[in-house]
């Protein structure tokens, strides 16, 4: 199998896992679900780090573009996780 084909396998199977896991999420937590999926979609930071770290600390286009990508993804990761934590801490049971 080519790498792309392996990627397609992984992709399709992940969608199946996603389908089952997400239907299990209680509707009351749909807002934190969006916040946390938002945070983890910032996994593009892996690509961003690879781009930003290629050079030698200069001012090349690649590095500046990479920096922007890391910067934006980092806002998402921290913003998403912190706000999810805030929301979830508010959900309390009857005393």
């Amino acid at each position, binding site marked *: 199998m080519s790498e792309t084909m392996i990627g397609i396998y992984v992709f399709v199977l992940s969608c199946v896992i996603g389908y089952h896991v997400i239907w299990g999420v209680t509707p009351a937590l749909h807002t934190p679900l969006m916040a946390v999926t938002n945070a983890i979609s910032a996994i593009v930071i*892996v690509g961003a780090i690879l781009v930003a770290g290629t050079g030698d600390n200069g001012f090349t286009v690649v590095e500046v573009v990479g920096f*922007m990508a890391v910067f934006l993804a980092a806002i998402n990761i921290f913003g998403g996780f912190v706000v999810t934590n805030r929301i979830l801490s508010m959900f309390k049971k009857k005393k």
Partner: protein
Amino acid sequence: MLTSGLSPELIKDIFAAVYLVATLFFILGLKGLSSPKTALKGNTYAMLGMLIAVVTTLFYPTVKSYYWILAGLILGGTIGTVIALRIQMTAMPQLVAALHSFVGLSAVFVAIGTYFSHKQAGELNSTLMVELAAGSFIGAITFTGSVIAFGKLQELLSSNPLIFKGQHYLNLLLGLVMFGFGAHFAMTDSFVSFMVMTGIALLLGFTLVLPIGGADMPVVVSMLNSYSGWAACATGFTLKNNLLITTGALVGSSGAILSYIMCKAMNRSIISVILGGFGGETAAASTAVGGKTVKSAAVEDAAFMLENSKKCIIVPGYGMAVAQAQHVIKELMLVLQEKEIEVKFAIHPVAGRMPGHMNVLLAESDIPYDCVFEMDEINSEFSNTDVVLIVGANDVVNPAAKTDKSSPLYGMPILDCYKARQVYVIKRSMRAGYAGVDNALFYYDNCALVFGDAKAVTEGMIKALKEG
């Protein structure tokens, strides 16, 4: 370097193995959200997964310099944390839209950066360029689409749908031209085509979301959530990184399922939402339906009825969020509970501006989640309920959705408030709901309207109950 002395293949496998661990943590994290009890732990798992992914990537053999990375991490991390700590819960839909836009733009930058780094290394081929094009255009549409969604939710833009003639043809044309330039880029490695394609995708994000009205925002926000996942997926394909593909697919399917749930709760097809034009504010027909007229009640009357009830259900809607009434609602709940009246909350899936919006606001005001029920759980209870209090909800309680075949709402599942002995609707004016449809419930014999701001009216009720 940590990895020196090992064969490149082995190094690749080691990284892939660690990334697999991160993937599992993400799945565990989402699994935790199946119950509020395990949700916080789930979030911790997801954070752990991200930490593993980021730290591992820092050791990747091709990562040679750290200044730009650290600068981005520290700056972005600080800004993200500060925003997340300060944001008001009522502004959550805007925040989520804004965050989606960042992921989208980040994916565009990653695609551009990867293009240059692979070009320098002489590793460009047409498969990679197709994947780069996909990552860039999905990211670009997510970016501008989310910016518009943010503008509408923040009310910087009118939440009315913006429609003009030939809109769908324009979108179709833009889409085709975009794919054309994408294909040209993949075949000829023309950077100009790559940029033109991305530019058109940016434009398409605007033109796709502008025609969608305020009431459809829960669907749009979910859809953009989904797009941000697919963007991560496409990025994963360009980097041959299964962690990104898996995570992106999880997020993508999450957003897609949420969009589906929202559409179903409005009895609308996803196509009709995307085409837009629904949800303009039109003047309500104030003419009586079937010779009946609307009754209005004084705050004290409603309080009296509440006091003499055994069971009441409160139905919150977007109006509660606008009036910031969730805290006084909680006080009302406590006053009623002191008088040994059973209080429950009923939430329609599309109440508010994003999925689960109302649950968050009620949780914020310390209302225990086991008093809060979803539509399917509570609909059978309305018939043995004494008083239903509707706070800022409208279309989701309109019985015309069941009875009136000519209503645009017909077929939409509703909360069966009309079955209760007495219904009070707190409302600012006789304006129609977001669907622009007159609410048949208001003309029912067992329904009365209490005019005023949700917060002020609720405060009035609490006062009357305490005195009474």
